[in-house]
């Protein structure tokens, strides 16, 4: 039993990191620009299918295919921002409506292009690493390492660079930031590009582990949202920790409780934590 619990705790942490990368996109977009982008799961889907197309159909090596896939997702994000999202700043309802519309458009387009039949990429890194009775797929460990590296790098980039300080200034007071020389529309575009590119990266990593289908983004954006709220909206490291905690709760909870209600375990813990820390575990009080 100990092995089973330990194995699922490790596995849950890895899956949680996947939630974390979407949570990072949500926290960046909302925390800095005030834009609510619930359609991030769709940019993840775009990144996943683009990776599949480039690596499986196009014959590119997987690591090479990931880069253009992220760029394609970011380009879709750029267009969505220019056409819709920039008009929804600080307006939750409008952001939600635009997101719902985009989810529908992207899902239908994907259905037309790829059909409802799931597709699965070739095995990028087959096999599992064995630690006693615990088997962890090698690719999952790589995915975990990449996500942690990206989130830590984003944290340092925002904490230590001028662009990062400008972003925080913009988040606190856009007018004052503009008066201090920050080109706010450009900053907003950059944040949108980065967050949708991140979602694209999440999709590219996802494609190496799971089968793809047009509706795949919906589940992950919900998990990402839970992770972002659990970690605290605006906290970059909180998004990673929020995701990991959520993943571990789901994994370990599924051992002792029915797996049919796995999603509920994370939600129950989220509600319990929010009762005591309304701004999340790492959010500002």
């Amino acid at each position, binding site marked *: 039993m100990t092995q089973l619990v330990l194995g699922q705790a490790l596995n*849950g942490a890895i899956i949680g990191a996947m939630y974390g990368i979407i949570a990072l996109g949500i926290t960046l977009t909302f925390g800095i620009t005030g834009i609510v982008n619930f359609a991030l799961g769709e940019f993840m889907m775009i990144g996943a299918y683009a990776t599949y197309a480039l690596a499986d159909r196009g014959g590119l090596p997987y690591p090479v295919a990931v880069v253009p896939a992220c760029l394609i997702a970011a380009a879709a994000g750029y267009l969505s921002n220019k056409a819709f999202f920039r008009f929804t700043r600080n307006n939750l309802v409008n952001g939600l409506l635009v997101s719902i519309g985009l989810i529908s458009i992207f899902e239908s387009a994907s259905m037309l292009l790829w059909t409802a039949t799931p597709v699965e990429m070739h095995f990028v890194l087959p096999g599992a690493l064995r630690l006693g009775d615990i088997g962890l797929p090698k690719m999952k460990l790589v995915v975990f390492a990449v996500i942690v590296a990206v989130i830590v790098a984003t944290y340092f980039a925002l904490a230590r660079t001028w662009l990062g300080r400008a972003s925080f200034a913009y988040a606190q007071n856009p007018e004052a930031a503009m008066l201090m020389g920050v080109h706010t529309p450009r900053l907003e575009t950059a944040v949108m590009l980065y967050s949708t590119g991140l979602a694209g990266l999440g999709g590219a990593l996802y494609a190496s582990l*799971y089968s793809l289908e047009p*509706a795949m983004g919906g589940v992950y954006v919900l998990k990402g949202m839970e992770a972002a709220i659990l970690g605290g909206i605006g906290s970059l490291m909180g998004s990673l920790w929020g995701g990991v905690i959520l993943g571990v709760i789901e994994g370990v909870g599924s051992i002792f409780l029915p797996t049919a209600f796995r999603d509920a375990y994370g939600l129950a813990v989220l509600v319990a934590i929010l009762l005591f820390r309304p701004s999340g575990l790492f959010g500002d009080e």
Partner: protein
Amino acid sequence: MITVRSLVIALTILVLGPLSANAQDVVKIGQIEAQTGANAIYGWMSSQGTALAVDEINKGGGFKVGNKTYKIQLIALDTRGEPKEATVQLKRLVEVDGAKYIFGPFLSNVFLAVRPYAGEFNGKLLMWGGATRIHDYVGTPGHEFLMRTWNWDAGKNGFGELMVDNLVKTTGAKKIAMLFQNDQGGKVLEDIYVPMFKAKGIEYRLDYFEPGTKDFSAVLAKIAAWKPDFLFPSYADSYLYDIVRQATESGQLTKFFLVRGSLGPGLKNKDGIGEYMVYVPKYFEEAEKKDPKVAKFIKSYKDFYKRDFPYDQAPLCSASCYDHVYMLVEAMKKAGTVDDPAAVRKALMSMTYDGMWRIRFDEKGEAVFNFDVVRLKKGGALEVTHINPN
């Protein structure tokens, strides 16, 4: 003025006359299937065979009943697997479009929602659905409008009993772990297979997973600790690819027994599996080489959709609906009418259609036809068993 009015009337008759004559020569087939959404794999595939058959019949000049030649107008609507949406669409098909023949639904939750409305048109409508839950209603009073076109697992002519027999006889399996999604389809499988396993003295465990799950590590680890002989997972490829991959990657579970879904997940993981036993309505790779009707169908499919035939997926429904359109046309010819669904149903009940499958309906109105069981072994070696309940 009178002259002008007469001219307008004459012109109207001239223009609309041929149109209304043409309208009489069209048989409308409505279709309600999930072409998009989480369970689209069933509806999307089934809608393809129908469109292909309709196109072939129309391009061939239509079909003759009595002295009239008819063409088919297919109105295929996407329910997205949503029962409410399907009910509205069925209402539209029946009341606005005037369709008397409805193909679908393949999903039980959709069928349960549309059944009361369709029942109001008993005798005036013929519904050809593949949903498992149709088994509970077809052939019962007030449900003469129903024909069940797919002999899923339920019932004495369903493939479930035959599949489990085959499993026990060929593998000697004694412990089966079932892993289904927590939805109507999963409950249907539980209702069918739990009594079957009990009756045969097979020890079983049943786990459900949340629809939308992609990572099955936790539940698979739990199941592996129970050490089953076979894992009986899910009913949709959207889950099977992930389950089979994750089960074999960790090496915990390598033997699979499937009653729905395709050979694809097994082939993809052929080096990791120990055995992958799957129901397929037809093993197309083999049938294409042996049966000219199947070869013709696959060629038509490729030409019509301009893409390769999905051998490794589940072409079951697309292919079966193709046969069903032709069978319906034959029944109309036999009944001598296109306007009386009750007469057409009577003709269907007394005929055997020899298409890609040899299809007949039992006394309740459930289709009975041949199918294949494929046993895939480690490395990709295949063994195909043809089962003919006719």
